[in-house]
């Protein structure tokens, strides 16, 4: 028995206006409208940014010309790190409760299965390696979290039917013109965060670059509702009989919806290929004639790997696809966008509060451009494997696939998308000293804190949203303050985790450790024991005040 998709008055969730246009007092003639932060775009990234800021009591207004969640599964795979960030944003549970967790993948080449694999996710984490979830649910739970925050009186506003028509930078702020069903109005803001997607109107209005590599290929993506007994696995085909010379992907989503991606090649008629009479025979060839299914959504996409030269332009800051675009292999789009806002919001808060210099925001560029470049590199490599661009590259690709059937060694060479993992901000100007000798590299300065069991719960549940001094079997004061910025102590012991994961991830061979952690749960610096002057210096470095 299939779950029914969430219905609202007989409509599917993506057909339901969630934040319909309402006239705002801002639209009164002669109103002098000023907001500290305005976000353009109520997609996953804009909503994540808005929630993060509102949780810190920064008033935020989100503008979107639409009033619904997006149609179609789109982003579909959400990785562990974004789920951990969503926990901090107060909406990780509904995502994970609804999402589909899978660990087994199968790889097919030509007419046969060449191998299967089990991800065997590392133990001792609250969240799975990733979940499959339609983007409309992802957005829905974020919107519901926005409504929760509103009920709690937090300063967060979501304005549907508000279309940005012009952006003008002014001294220490931005001037916006917005169109609505009741006509245009204007507002000023101190900071504008553009989360308006790959085709970013803000970027276009500002005449900013967006350069990179276009991949000459088309993919048909379909969300198919079917009552089929395919297992909860990821199946990837290279050059299958039902899609010769191309690739295919089958992925399970909640509500009995399956996601199918079929590579179509370059010279095709997109409009024609999207028509059900052309899509259905393709799907029948793939799924078998006797499988009953219904199309929920069909789209054709081409993709590009590119990024802006800088993400921050004065008081306008770009995040998510607006700032960088990757190929879909490896699920690095929405996943990296959520990490953008995780990186940005605490910095913006410190700058707005006058506790850190404006230059702290330059580190957003440094750190997230590093992340974007890593994602672009990985997803370009996957694309080059999946869609070989030359004869010799196809020959090597097929050789690796052939060998993978018989020999283990070739399996790591097969690249059908490398799962999004968070990047370590090595070389960031915010990183302090790494004086904990014999400690694991995975928790070096710049790294995101890996989760670990802690008592009845997990470590990450107790981290984030503020600077913290994590003391493991070490003495630290309750709080330390420098220039108005406070780091609070969290004292734990390796003995709090009998499994040993905590010690393995944070101590290695060391007996004790003191970590300075950022509000985004990244490591700023670490030492074997507490030294007030050293911690204060690292706190200054981590906040751009060194």
């Amino acid at each position, binding site marked *: 028995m299939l779950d029914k998709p969430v219905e609202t008055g007989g409509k599917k969730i993506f057909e339901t206006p969630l934040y319909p246009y309402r006239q705002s007092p801002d639209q009164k003639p002669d109103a002098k409208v000023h907001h500290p932060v305005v976000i353009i775009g109520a997609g996953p990234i804009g909503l994540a940014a808005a929630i993060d800021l509102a949780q810190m009591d920064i008033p935020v207004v989100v503008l979107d010309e639409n009033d619904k969640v997006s149609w179609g599964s789109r982003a579909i795979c959400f990785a562990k790190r974004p789920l951990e960030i969503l926990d901090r944003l107060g909406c990780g549970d509904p995502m994970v409760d609804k999402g589909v967790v899978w660990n087994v993948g199968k790889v097919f080449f030509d007419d046969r299965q060449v191998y299967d694999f089990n991800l065997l996710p590392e133990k001792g984490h609250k969240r799975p390696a990733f979940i499959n979830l339609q983007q409309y649910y992802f957005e829905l739970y974020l919107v519901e979290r926005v409504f929760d925050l509103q009920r709690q009186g937090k300063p967060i506003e979501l304005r549907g039917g508000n279309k940005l028509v012009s952006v003008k930078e002014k001294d220490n702020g931005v001037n916006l013109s917005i169109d609505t069903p009741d006509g245009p109005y204007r507002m000023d803001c101190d900071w504008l965060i553009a989360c308006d997607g790959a085709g970013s109107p803000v970027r276009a209005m500002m005449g900013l670059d967006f350069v990179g590599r276009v991949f000459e290929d088309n993919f048909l993506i379909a969300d198919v509702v079917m009552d089929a007994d395919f297992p909860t696995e990821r199946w990837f085909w290279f050059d299958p009989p039902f899609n010769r010379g191309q690739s295919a992907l089958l992925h399970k989503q909640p509500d009995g919806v399956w996601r199918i991606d079929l590579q179509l090649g370059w010279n095709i008629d997109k409009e024609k290929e999207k028509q059900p009479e052309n899509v259905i025979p393709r799907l029948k060839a793939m799924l078998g004639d006797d499988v009953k299914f219904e199309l929920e959504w069909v789209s054709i996409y081409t993709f590009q790997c590119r990024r802006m030269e800088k993400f921050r332009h004065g008081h306008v800051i770009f995040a998510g696809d607006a700032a960088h675009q990757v190929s879909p292999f490896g699920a690095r789009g929405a996943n990296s966008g959520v990490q953008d806002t995780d990186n940005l919001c605490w910095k913006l808060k410190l700058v707005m509060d006058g506790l850190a210099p404006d230059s702290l925001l330059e580190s957003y560029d440094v750190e997230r451009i590093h992340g974007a470049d890593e994602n672009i590199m990985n997803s370009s490599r996957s694309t080059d494997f999946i869609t070989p661009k030359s004869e010799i590259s196809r*020959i*090597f690709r*097929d*050789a690796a696939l*052939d*060998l993978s059937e018989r020999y283990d060694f070739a399996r790591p060479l097969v690249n059908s998308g490398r799962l999004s993992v968070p990047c370590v901000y090595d070389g960031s100007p915010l990183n302090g000293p790494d004086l904990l000798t014999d400690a694991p590299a995975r928790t070096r300065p710049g790294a995101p804190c890996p989760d670990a069991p802690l008592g009845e719960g997990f470590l990450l549940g107790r981290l984030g949203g503020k600077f913290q001094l994590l003391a493991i079997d070490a003495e630290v004061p309750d709080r330390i303050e420098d220039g108005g910025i406070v780091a609070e102590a969290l004292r734990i012991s390796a003995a709090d985790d009998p499994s040993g994961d905590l010690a393995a991830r944070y101590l290695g061979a060391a007996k004790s450790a003191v970590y300075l952690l950022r509000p985004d749960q990244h490591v700023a610096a670490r030492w074997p024991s507490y030294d007030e002057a050293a911690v204060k210096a690292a706190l200054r470095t981590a906040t751009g005040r060194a």
Partner: protein
Amino acid sequence: MAKLNTKPNIAAPDDFYADLLAIHDGLSKEESDALNARLILILANHVGDRETLAEALAAAQARN
């Protein structure tokens, strides 16, 4: 060239060379290309060491 052995290292080189050609006997160009690619990947995995492999890639690239 620090790690890649570029000195003679194959016993009975004529025998090896004959074996190498023999596995291509009767193959089309396409089949031979595929076989060569599989062979490169098998040998590269056996070497494993990234520095040695990088030197091998450079050595193969170098032309007089």
